[in-house]
């Protein structure tokens, strides 16, 4: 038993040293895990279009893991203490769909659908509501005047308005009184080659109902799945070409 342990320990140490040596030989100061697709000083391009795929057959009624992960990551939900429930922020919410004829119940997360032609951008009088080159729809809170036209224009009710003074925001996710906000597709994570917090939480809990990736890359998992199984848009009749797609609706 102890011999086995010794062997294991020896092997582990050897592997650790080998890994360190490999990391050093590639380039001094550069480790394998830091390799990034886009350097921090380069702008996003339209070669990439970020999207999300939600498999509603795997999304369970009552499960709220994606919503709580978003709250923790971006710091909303618990901070608006003075706002009424109707005023409080909702970047992502769980929606229950019931077929009245058959009684079949489905549950799915609904958030900003990151449209290719976003109505919120069309109506914004200041240019604060905007779409990045890589398809992520954001609010530039520096120039948002809080008119809330975008909230009325959005067919998904994806945006919220902050009614009260906030403190202790996350340094990577500024949010404050008098501005509109919504799902950013965790842009701070995406810019560092990460995945949105909701997708990460869904996978970590083993539900595997959410996929994130590049819709323009035919070899990405999300594109392959969409090609094979198809994916529906909510309110496809509006022709918005949403970045968030659903399966099994």
């Amino acid at each position: 038993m102890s011999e086995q342990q010794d062997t294991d320990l020896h092997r582990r140490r050897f592997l650790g040293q080998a890994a360190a040596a490999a990391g050093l030989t590639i380039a001094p100061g550069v480790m394998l895990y830091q390799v990034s697709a886009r350097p921090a000083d380069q702008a996003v391009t339209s070669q990439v279009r970020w999207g999300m795929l939600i498999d509603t057959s795997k999304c369970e009624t009552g499960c709220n893991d994606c919503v709580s992960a978003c709250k923790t990551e971006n710091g909303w939900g618990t901070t608006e203490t003075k706002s009424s429930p109707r005023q409080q922020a909702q970047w992502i919410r769980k929606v229950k769909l019931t077929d009245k004829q058959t009684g079949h119940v489905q549950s799915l997360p609904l958030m900003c659908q990151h449209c290719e032609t976003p109505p919120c951008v069309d109506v914004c009088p200041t240019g604060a509501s905007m779409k990045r080159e890589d398809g992520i729809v954001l609010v530039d809170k520096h120039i948002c005047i809080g008119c809330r036209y975008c909230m009325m224009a959005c067919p998904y009710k994806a945006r919220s308005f902050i009614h009260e003074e906030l403190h202790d925001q996350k340094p990577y996710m500024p949010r404050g009184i008098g501005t509109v906000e919504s799902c950013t597709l965790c842009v701070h994570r995406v810019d560092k080659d990460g995945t949105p917090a909701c997708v990460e939480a869904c996978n970590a809990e083993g539900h595997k109902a959410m996929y994130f990736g590049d819709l323009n890359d035919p070899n990405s998992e999300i594109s392959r799945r969409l090609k094979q199984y198809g994916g529906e848009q909510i309110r496809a009749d509006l022709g918005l070409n949403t970045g968030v797609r659903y399966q099994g609706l």
Partner: protein
Amino acid sequence: MVFLPRYLSKLVALLGVSLVLALPLTSLAGDLLPSIPKGKGEQCVEPTEIMRRNHMEFLLHQRDDTVHRGIRTTQHSLKECIECHNAPAQDGKVARVGTADHFCNSCHTVAAVNVDCFECHADKPENAQYRHALKGKTE
């Protein structure tokens, strides 16, 4: 009475007046001038003179680059300013933006320039141990 030439008597009077005026000023100067807390590290991302005059330009430029174009260099990012300049003290206490101890507030109160940044942005660092590289333009 000692006779003094006119110009000399004027000079003496002027000296007396300036002495009376200067005394309270020197004692007040310490209270009037901002006490800027020392940041982490040896020097800032730009020379002090440039930073004093142009930090708002850097921040304005950086904010547009970051929000609209996804450029996340750390050299002129407000988050990085906060990380170094509002580091927690030995006892773990961090200055909040409403108080004179905050490095932005200490100057801006004296200059009577209101800063809106912290209505949305965090006024204290998330990671107290963090210090970013001065020379690297990217992380």
